[in-house]
């Protein structure tokens, strides 16, 4: 099929790129402690991108048999686009096509799901709390990316997801885990953590409004970073006047101990692959190097347009199937230390992190599963409260970073201790 599409496109376009995706998934959902739903999903996707007279067009379909319609729609779409600086799709490189996120034991079989859910439930019994819902899913997927410059790469991968929601009185606990590797997922621990948050979060005390030392868990931190830092690093946003980081290359944007890196080959990654969403060989990109802003993320289109070096940061998400700028494994590094020393507010999650202002970085969001930690222990639950501040200023307020990290989608995040965060209490 790929050859057919490329040869049909050759007559009408200057360049053509094809992404063919398939996935086979099985999942089961818990309602309370019982499995209420079993699901199976088989899906395919075809995304065609064409370049004609320096105009880019794209279309996608979930039925690859309809490739002719899809190709026509992509060509039609290119006629409406403005011309752009374009220096060509990548050619074939000698890339190691070893599978980096594939576990051959992971197959869409109900027995594996049953086992995962049994272990999840067992773990949840560590502390007294009720399961409200939970889930386990197994996905095996693959993609082929090819273009008219002779490039063709193929890969496949696996993914296991588990999640559980629990409640004790009016205290909720939500935990989840994801990995491509069956050995790296630990349902007992996930269940135990959810039960801990629900059980130990009961009878929380009110906080007084004021300025506090606060530790954000990897989950809470990733939500804030995703809301404002990630969009601000996108080359497209930088060059179109939508980024806080515009014009700040070479300046200090965080505490000097902190670095923010995209390492596509970090072994903790969920879907490592040697090429990005446009078939460019991936590389390590250091956005913030010991406090100094050093580079932005680019896909080919944006790099060509603004005469920047491509950073192989293209990802495929969104409805149109077009490549967009993202990251692979975004890692926050810094001075490791005992971040829960003395007394500190520990925030497991946030309610409403997506409502942060992506331009200015200002946020005021509700706390989820907050505790007062004393000398490393979750000592006392907090009933509720909001934290507010500015995400870009937070980068300067980093006091310490945990050694332990968590992989959350395309981020690998530690827990981080911040000084002087405003907390609006109910007291």
């Amino acid at each position, binding site marked *: 099929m790929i050859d057919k599409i490329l040869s049909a496109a050759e007559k009408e376009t200057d360049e053509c790129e094809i992404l063919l995706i398939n996935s086979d998934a099985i999942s089961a959902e818990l*309602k*309370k402690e*019982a*499995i*209420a*739903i*079993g*699901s*199976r*999903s*088989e*899906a*395919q996707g075809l995304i065609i991108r064409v370049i004609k007279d320096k105009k*880019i067009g*794209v*279309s*996608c*379909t*979930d*039925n690859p048999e309809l490739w002719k319609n899809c190709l026509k*729609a992509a060509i*039609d779409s290119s006629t409406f*686009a*403005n011309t752009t600086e374009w220096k060509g799709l990548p050619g074939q490189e000698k890339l190691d096509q070893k599978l980096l996120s594939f576990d051959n034991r992971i197959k869409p079989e*109900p027995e594996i799901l049953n086992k995962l859910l049994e272990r999840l439930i067992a773990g949840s019994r560590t502390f007294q709390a009720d399961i*409200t*819902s939970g889930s386990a899913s197994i996905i095996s997927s693959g993609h082929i990316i090819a273009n008219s410059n002779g490039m063709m790469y193929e890969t496949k991968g696996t993914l296991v997801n588990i999640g559980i*929601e629990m*409640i004790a009185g*009016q*205290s*909720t606990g939500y935990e989840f885990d994801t990995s491509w590797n069956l050995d790296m997922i630990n349902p007992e621990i996930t269940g135990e953590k959810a039960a801990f948050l629900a059980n130990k979060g009961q009878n929380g005390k009110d906080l007084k*409004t004021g*300025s506090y030392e606060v530790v954000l868990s990897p989950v809470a931190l990733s939500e804030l970073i995703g809301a404002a830092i990630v969009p601000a690093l996108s080359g497209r946003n930088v060059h*179109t*006047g*939508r980024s806080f980081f515009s014009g700040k290359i070479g300046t200090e944007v965080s505490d000097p101990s902190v670095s923010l890196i995209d390492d596509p080959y970090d072994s903790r990654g969920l879907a490592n692959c040697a090429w990005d969403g446009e078939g460019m060989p991936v590389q390590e990109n250091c956005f913030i190097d010991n406090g100094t802003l050093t580079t932005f993320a680019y896909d080919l289109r944006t790099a060509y347009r603004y005469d920047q070096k491509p950073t192989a940061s293209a990802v495929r998400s969104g*409805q*149109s*199937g*077009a490549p967009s700028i993202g990251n692979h494994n975004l890692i926050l590094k810094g001075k490791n230390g005992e971040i829960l020393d003395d007394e500190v507010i520990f925030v497991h999650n946030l*309610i*409403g992190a*997506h*409502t*942060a*202002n992506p*331009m*200015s970085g*200002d*946020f*005021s*969001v*509700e706390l*989820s599963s907050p505790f007062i930690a004393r000398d490393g222990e979750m000592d006392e639950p907090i009933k*509720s409260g909001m934290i*507010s501040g*500015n995400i870009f200023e937070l980068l300067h307020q980093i006091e310490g970073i945990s050694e332990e990290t968590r992989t959350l989608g395309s981020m690998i995040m530690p827990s981080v201790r911040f000084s002087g965060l*405003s907390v*609006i209490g109910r007291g």
Partner: protein
Amino acid sequence: MSVSVRYYDIRRVIGEVTQIDLDNGRIEQAGSSFFDKAIIRVLGDNGWGVVSVTGEELDTDHIPSSLITKAAETSAITNTHINIEITPSGIHPVPPMKEDPRDVSLEEKVSLLMELDTATKGQDIVSRRIQYLEKAEKVIFSDSSGHEYSYNLCRCGFSVMAVASRGGTAQMGYERDHTINGLNIRHRQDLATEAAVRAVKLLDASPAKGGRMQAVLDPELAGVFAHEAVGHASEGDLIKEGSSILKGKINENIGSPLLYIVDDPSIPAFGFCPVDDEGSATKRTEIISKGVLSNYLHSKETLSTIGNGDPGHCRGMPGVEPIVRMSNTFIQNGDASYDEIIDECRSGILLKGSRGGQVDPGRGIFQFNAEYGYLIENGELSSMVRDVSLSGEILDVLHNISMVGKDCTLHPGYCGKGGQTVPVTDGSPHLFLNNAIIGGCDID
């Protein structure tokens, strides 16, 4: 493996999505994509078996028996017995569109959006983005009881973002409108200009001060309040799972006697459902009447277990199993005028526009963010504030509504739950809230 089939339904959605992206006046993208997705649900001996495939697989056979068998086999993993209620069935007609967007060429749409782009230009505006989204869907539904429905629905709309910058600070103004009534991008320059003007004004606004205070919510934000603080917690699946604070509270007084909250999927607004995604007829459900919790929102399954409410609230994205969802959720008009509310407030904050919100229904705590606001001093609006949010506890805050306006409007948007995003509207008249918890970047 042989699993019995107590019920099945099949929903196929064939769609075309058109997107246009104008970035600082450049056409970054303008084109269409296609999808055809089907989902087959079977209620087996115990629970549900669900199979999601490409819609084409249904073409060969009127009743796709092999897929029903496959879904039944998928249900074999379940170990809890699920029952469903037989619900009234029927379909509302889809209202005709004033101008079908599919009849308007991509070229003309692009040129109309260019007019909006021009309207966002201005001093201090450093970035402009206009996005258009049109989704035309044909939905085909059938179930084992012999119900068959089919309808076409086209949703379209646009968003305008303008960024203003001066002296090192940058602020954003955002406006959007989505509809089922046909093309809505003609003569909308006023809305585009509003986004730009707001972005510039926000440069001079001060950060809001956090703490407890009196608050007035505009219709858009008060609609989000109804959605986050009440709508989600009244969803039957959360009640059934035990993860809603409103569990067991039917017929209890949970809010001000001024308060009536409704979810009505039959209203032909952006959240319109001609029939829900498991074939139940849709109608108005009064969640709160006179401050008393009256009804939950239900699917066939949650109605059977929980009762106390209406079916017709079960929705799913194409190719994904339907779950209990809101559609058009609103607070009903009271009798106070806007001026009376601001005057009564005397001192507090007026919150306007929405940047979204979230709720933990089990804990009963919600948060949402306004795009901007104004301080109210001596019963009059004074200076503008930015980045102001509101959070609260569901069971407290509803009692704190002391005035309900009479200017209810519905605002289109999208709601996410369980990984699925569906079109909704939220609406309300102006609301006056005592003792609200306001979040802002400034504290005493």
